[in-house]
């Protein structure tokens, strides 16, 4: 149960986990010990309450962290920073878009021959495929980083004075 709870805590925003994660786990363990002494029924009620509590708490914390409003969309906080991989990908996408615009301008300026429209279509498909490939690559990098826990490691504080 403790492992499940620790896993569910990952649903909270990273800043929230840094601030309260260990403390929440400690309180959970003490409450679990108390529930265990009360019997099986109390334990089942405790598990249900904790899982539902952590799920709703994580949802609320995520919405609060990104200041989400259905009528205004997302309003990211000033402390939010894109990871470097995202910045690199965004730059690559920008370069691809500029290249596509330049190519398109060259083709339009050339002539209105029917074969040029085929070239425009091919160029569009090529740029679309490039963007898809870049997006997939970026997602794969972020997914791999998340799985390997490198981002979490970068957030580890070695002593309390660093907080």
């Amino acid at each position, binding site marked *: 149960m403790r492992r499940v709870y620790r896993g569910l805590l990952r649903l909270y925003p990273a800043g*929230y986990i840094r*601030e*309260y994660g260990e*403390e*929440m786990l*400690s*309180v*959970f363990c*003490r*409450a679990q010990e108390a529930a265990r002494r009360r019997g099986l029924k109390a334990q089942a009620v405790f598990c249900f*309450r*904790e899982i*539902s*509590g*952590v*799920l*709703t*708490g*994580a949802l*609320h*914390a995520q919405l609060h962290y990104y200041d989400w409003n259905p009528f205004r969309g997302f309003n990211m906080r000033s402390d939010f920073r894109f990871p470097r991989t995202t910045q690199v990908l965004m730059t690559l996408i920008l370069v691809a878009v500029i290249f596509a615009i330049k190519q398109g301008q060259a083709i339009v300026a050339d002539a209105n021959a029917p074969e040029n429209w085929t070239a425009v279509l091919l160029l569009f498909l090529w740029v679309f495929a490039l963007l898809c490939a870049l997006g997939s690559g970026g997602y794969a990098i972020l997914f791999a980083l998340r799985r390997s826990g490198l981002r979490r490691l970068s957030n580890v504080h070695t002593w309390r004075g660093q907080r």
Partner: protein
Amino acid sequence: MDQSPLTEPVLLVLLSLAQQPRHGYSIMKDVEQMSDGRVMLSTGTLYGALQRLLSRGWIEQFEEEESSRDRRAYRLTPRGRRSLQREVERMKHLTKLAALRVAPKEV
């Protein structure tokens, strides 16, 4: 300042801290005791409430050196105490109103 009525868990957390500073687990147990077992906070609900109260400046954290298991504790700020008193006054007014409007019909 937020003048909206407090939810029951938040009110009970404030009442718990009004008596004395407490750690997370101690707040949880006190809330259960105060409500005769009717309100049992999960850790997710408790820390959600604590985080909201901290962001409003109604409570504050402090570190205890001597305690080994729970170093971080929470206490009510003067602003939090004023908000709690205002909420209690609002509830007293509601109770008085309810007694005037509902009680005669029950007789």
